[in-house]
């Protein structure tokens, strides 16, 4: 991969845990690569599988989905519902032959600024190594 490539990473995060965790990383001035674009949603329960597909259609090279740890959901169980959907959705993506190393799920609490920094850094570096998600981009460019 040429050095020039900078991955585009979409992060769907829940407003009450991961978003605040990311804020904390800021307050503590924890540096990490600037590739992630955070979309704030109320709860992981709101993060529909279509959004993950859409993110790739929008040209994302990797997607991060992150919310409250089990039992910490601001809405009591949104994250549990989400976790179930992901279990099944990942199987679908595997069956289809998606590059699973581009789809990341984490629990990051409001207190885990450090974890946010680590996760974002690692995902960015990993995706840099993987290069652009050409397999998906080809789909989107075909017939167009």
């Amino acid at each position, binding site marked *: 991969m040429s050095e020039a490539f900078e991955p585009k990473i979409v992060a769907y995060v829940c407003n009450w845990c991961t978003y605040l965790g990311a804020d904390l990383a800021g307050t503590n001035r924890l540096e990490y690569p600037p590739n992630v674009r955070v979309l704030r949603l109320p709860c992981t329960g709101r993060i529909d*599988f*279509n959004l993950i*597909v*859409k993110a790739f*259609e929008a040209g994302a090279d990797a997607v991060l989905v992150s919310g409250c740890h*089990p*039992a910490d959901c601001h809405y009591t*169980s949104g994250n*549990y*519902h989400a*976790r*179930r*959907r*992901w*279990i*099944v*959705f*990942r*199987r*679908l993506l*595997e*069956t*289809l*032959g*998606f*590059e*699973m190393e581009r789809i*990341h*799920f*984490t*629990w990051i609490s409001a207190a885990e600024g450090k974890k946010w920094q680590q*996760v974002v850094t690692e995902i960015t570096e990993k995706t840099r190594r993987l290069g652009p998600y050409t*397999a998906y981009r*080809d*789909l*989107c460019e*075909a*017939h*167009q």
Partner: protein
Amino acid sequence: MITRLRETCRRLLDQNKVQVVIGYGQRRPGAAAHPVFITRPEDVGQLTWGGNCFANLTVYLKRKEVKALGKAALVVKGCDERALVVLEKEAQVERGDLYVIGMACDGVHAPKCSACVVRTPRFADELIGEAGSAPGAASPAAPDLLDVLMAKPAAERWAFWKSEFSRCVKCYACRQVCPLCYCERCIVDKNRPVTIDTSASLKGNFAWHITRAFHLAARCVGCGECTRACPAGIPVGLLNRSLADTAKGNFGYAAGMDPAAEPVFGAWSSSDKEDFIR
């Protein structure tokens, strides 16, 4: 069995227990049976039963035209009946508004029959015939396509589906024939905003088949009609089966088997696996 079936339906119509019988009919010998909607006792002769009755007739319950005919008697095989169970769970059929005629079935020469788990309808109002203990008259189970596929590396699976979906013309036959695709306005027809690119481009086709498969996750009863109906010969049903496997593996859930079982989605357990979550 056919005679018994016809008698039953005549009786139901005579006594006005139902206003329409949804069953199988046949134009020429050898042809696949087609659905018939019998509203008059004298027409019960049109009803048939046999190895060519592939279709899952529960699909017609969602049709407005059919609903308009009044209370229906529905001819089901054991496998079709699973769809009824799901539809009832999802508040789409009132079992009371329906008379179910269960046909004991030895398989209808469809590949799906090789894996048949319910030969005899379990919840029918009336059961006709007895299922032979002989395993389905289906074609001997060829090496399972899903297993073959899953054994391949991801890149090859991707390539496989890419070439399959490249043939998709977005005719939505897979949707129309599916007894569990009953939304009044399918998500692909939602245009503000557009969730799924409606063009028959690879992009749109992937989006559609992903969505279709996931919407049937832990609901699909594996009647296999979608694959049978696809004019482009895309084995779309594979995706459903793959998800059915996970539903079974992770949540011990088999759609349409146990009316009492809690659906996979809309429920959760604190012990759901999360080895993939960091």
